[in-house]
């Protein structure tokens, strides 16, 4: 089952033409209103340009720049008759790993951008490592400004080969990665295949985005049984529904059907799914991503924060585990920190035990036993929580394997957490 709504992200730097690429995607899919086009055209004429500067469609407003929030993820929307797209546009500056992590956390595909004249640079390698860490299922390398290099065929082949070697090392299958030679400025291989790149026989970028097979649940190819974090207990207590008790939530993994045997975590009580309710009628089956209400056969004590899971592969709730974190807090993380941890629909107190490793993005290697983790650092920690959690390894499921760390005093989100050891998968070392 392929998703009709595709969530993507972009990574790469503005200098490589990222704003122009995003503007081109909006423009070529006619996702921009005529009045916005007119405004861009006028502004471009004022700047003495021959063609509309499409980067103006997406670049921040002056007011934004004054507020100092250009360093942030922006969301763009475009659609073709075959698919709708939500695009998280992440700034490419080296020190803003947090943005790449935020944008890529929900992405089923990421477009990584390089300048054909520069090829795969250190930043490309770093971005790819972070994307591997986050388990992004599909990658596209857009080799931009291909019209500006001599012997484009050789340049493109060399960049593709180098990138493929990197992605293989980081764990992607070749089928999940595609390199496309493009010119965002002129529109080559964006909406339509270019005649200027005879050495490339693949799809245009938009063709690829429209057709790339992506599961609606975006978790790669791991098949898990049901994971249903209970969000809310629906008890109408009305004359019409005096005894109704439904458990509302969004299916985080797997699928559910009436008659399925389930276990409630952390209590371990077993019961059966009697019905799947929606305001539009009962469902015969519901799959990952759908918000539903489950009616269970037995009257069991369930509340927000519990997880309803399939009996066959239910995770064992645990209160101590290792995890990889991207630290987002201004103040460094040190061992012994007391924080809040939000996993699924449960928020609980947490203590960070030890700092096990700090990932060196330059060398793609992990250094053991760091003293602290600073803003934008990625590292591995051990964590203990006050209430046992039904976690899965992040590499198996992005929804049940992810969590936030929250500073209890200010309420800020201070870390993106990934259950298990995802670091070892991306420790490739450059040997340099």
């Amino acid at each position: 089952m392929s998703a009709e709504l595709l969530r993507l992200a972009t990574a790469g730097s503005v200098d490589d033409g990222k704003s122009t690429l995003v503007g081109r995607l909006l423009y070529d899919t006619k996702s921009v209103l005529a009045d916005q086009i007119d405004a861009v055209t006028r502004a471009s004429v004022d700047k003495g340009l021959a063609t509309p500067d499409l980067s103006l469609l997406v670049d921040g407003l002056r007011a934004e720049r004054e507020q100092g929030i250009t360093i942030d993820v922006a969301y763009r929307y475009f659609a073709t008759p075959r698919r709708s797209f939500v695009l998280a546009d992440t700034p490419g500056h080296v020190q803003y790993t947090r943005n790449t992590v935020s944008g890529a956390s929900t992405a089923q595909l990421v477009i990584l951008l390089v300048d054909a004249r520069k090829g795969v640079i250190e930043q490309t390698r770093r971005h790819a490592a972070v994307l591997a860490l986050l388990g992004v299922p599909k990658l596209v390398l857009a080799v931009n400004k291909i019209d500006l290099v001599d012997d484009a065929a050789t340049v493109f082949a060399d960049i593709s080969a180098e990138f493929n070697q990197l992605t293989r090392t980081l764990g992607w299958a070749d089928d999940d990665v595609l390199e496309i030679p493009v010119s965002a400025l002129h529109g080559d291989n964006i909406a339509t295949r270019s005649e200027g790149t005879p050495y490339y026989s693949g799809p245009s970028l938009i063709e690829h985005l429209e057709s790339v097979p992506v599961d609606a649940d975006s978790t790669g190819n791991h098949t898990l049984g049901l994971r249903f974090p209970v969000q809310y207990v629906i008890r109408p207590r009305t004359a019409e529904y005096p005894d109704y008790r439904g458990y509302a939530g969004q299916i985080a993994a797997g699928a559910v059907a009436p008659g399925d045997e389930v276990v409630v975590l952390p209590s371990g009580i077993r019961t059966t799914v009697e019905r799947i309710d929606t305001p539009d009628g009962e469902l015969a089956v519901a799959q990952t991503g759908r918000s539903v209400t489950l009616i269970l056969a037995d009257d069991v004590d369930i509340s927000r924060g519990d997880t309803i899971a399939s009996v066959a592969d239910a995770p064992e709730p645990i209160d101590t585990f290792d995890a990889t974190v991207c630290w987002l807090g201004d103040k460094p993380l040190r061992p012994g920190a007391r924080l809040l941890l939000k996993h699924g629909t449960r928020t609980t107190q947490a203590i960070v035990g030890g700092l096990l490793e700090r990932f060196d993005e330059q060398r793609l290697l992990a250094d053991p036993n760091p003293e602290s983790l600073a803003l934008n650092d990625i590292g591995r920690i051990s964590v203990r929580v006050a209430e046992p959690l039904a976690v899965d390894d992040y590499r198996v499921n992005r929804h049940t394997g992810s969590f936030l760390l929250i500073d209890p005093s200010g309420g800020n989100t201070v870390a993106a957490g990934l259950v298990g050891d995802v670091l070892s998968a991306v420790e490739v070392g450059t040997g340099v």
Partner: protein
Amino acid sequence: MTETIVNELVSESSNTTERAFGISDFDTLAALESESIHIFREVAGEFERPVILFSGGKDSTVLLHLALKAFWPAPLPFALLHVDTGHNLPEVLEFRDKIVERYGLRLHVAKVEDYLADGRLTERPDGIRNPLQTVPLLDAISEHRFDAVFGGGRRDEERSRAKERIFSLRNAFGQWDPKRQRPELWNLYNGRHAPGEHVRVFPLSNWTELDIWRYIAREDIDLASIYYAHQRPVYQRDGMWMTPGVWGGPREDEVLETLSVRYRTVGDGSSTGAVLSDAADNQAILAEVAASRLTERGATRGDDRVSEAAMEDRKREGYF
């Protein structure tokens, strides 16, 4: 070309009440619907006193429709809040009250006119009242101690909204501090806030204008009557068809004529215009909207509907 696309956009749409979903039905609208419902339920689970901003316009009507779905068959666990500029078309207020009665909802109204009457606010020279809504809104939030305020804002509305979060923290002055906006990861929302602060929540963040209209058509959602073509006395000003009201009427050089029009957006009657249209139901409006969104680029066919699109949803300036 455009016609084909429009037909594809408008094709499948029917009343859903009898529909049994299969896996293949999990299309874009179903995915957006599930995401919005998830957001409503998160807020219900984590906040004490949420409220839904309800203007009677199409976005807040869709917002309410999704909220009702999220808690069905239980009653809605939130109240509604309308910040009334005093410049509403009577049909919109009638619709608001009809909806409140139909679903047995609680409605709070904060009136700009009360503030003008006792001098806490002063009428602007241009007579436009949208910017005056902020103070009554913040007063209502602190008076009722609302800690989460749902709005119908969408990130596709304009560039400046593209970076807005789904959960947007506001301080005690209702201000949005860019440095305190939190990264949003996966579908884990962080709603923690200090006493006196509140969180604005935007369940429609990832919906586009076209998604909204497709959903209205598919779910057959009842909108305020001014959204559908009707005969109305109007006069032309700045390329828009304006209706006379308490905010004023035609000047000497402007002619009042009765035409078939509909409104694309509900806002301050002094600054919101209608468009010429014969679209009398959701399907016809969807076809018109789809066509106007896909108008060939650079076409300067004096197409009112397209320039009108730019005027859409300005109602939230100084408000959201």
